[in-house]
């Protein structure tokens, strides 16, 4: 059973993984993204497009399910103001075998980064600035279309 949540509240990674660990699952792979503690950034605010964001995440899950035999997918993405060290995103995938779980987890994150409408604004001591999209994220999503990482 898939679950997608866009929420201000924190989440419990252990609880998310436990919710994926049932039935025929032989492998659960997960990713947790955090606000980096690199010194300069004092806080980060995440904006989204209510409605489209949830739909875009659901589309990404559909695309992942078309490529790998997945048993369950859970995505939690936080919005609002977050401090360094706080959790931003959880992606977890359950499958019968590890390859599908690892690959689908990475695929979902790569597409989330380039297709799901979220925007980060960083606060620093020098002021606030919108985070610029990175070309490396575009390339990471692009490589799945090139088919080189399908294995």
């Amino acid at each position: 059973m898939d679950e997608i949540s866009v929420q201000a509240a924190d989440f419990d990674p252990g609880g998310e993984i436990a919710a994926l660990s049932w039935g025929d699952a032989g492998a659960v792979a997960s990713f947790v993204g955090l606000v980096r503690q690199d010194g300069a950034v004092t806080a980060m605010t995440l904006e989204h497009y209510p409605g489209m964001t949830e739909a875009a995440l659901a589309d990404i899950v559909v695309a992942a399910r078309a490529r790998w035999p997945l048993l369950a997918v859970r995505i939690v993405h936080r919005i609002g103001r977050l401090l360094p060290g706080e959790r931003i995103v959880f992606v977890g995938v359950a499958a019968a075998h590890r390859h599908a779980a690892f690959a689908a987890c990475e695929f979902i994150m790569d597409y989330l980064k380039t297709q799901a409408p979220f925007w980060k604004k960083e606060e620093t001591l020098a002021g606030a600035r919108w985070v610029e999209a990175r070309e490396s994220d575009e390339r990471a999503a692009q490589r799945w279309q090139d088919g080189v990482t399908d294995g």
Partner: protein
Amino acid sequence: MSVKLLYFASLREALGLAEESIELPPGVATVGALRAWLAKRHAPLATTKNLRAAVNQKMAGMEAAIRDGDEIAFFPPVTGG
């Protein structure tokens, strides 16, 4: 035709506007044409680097057609995750 427009992130801040409903003149029938027409009063629509758009909550290219009643969003490239 009339459409609902949404702006997000740095574009929303630059415009000082999150959404508006607007009546389009005849001939403005694609996302790209809408952008060019809107840019006459919303300059940041012309200057935002790699501007992205969505029509009815689906990512759309500048060539995408727009119809009466559509919800069209403009925003900078996404940076979630």
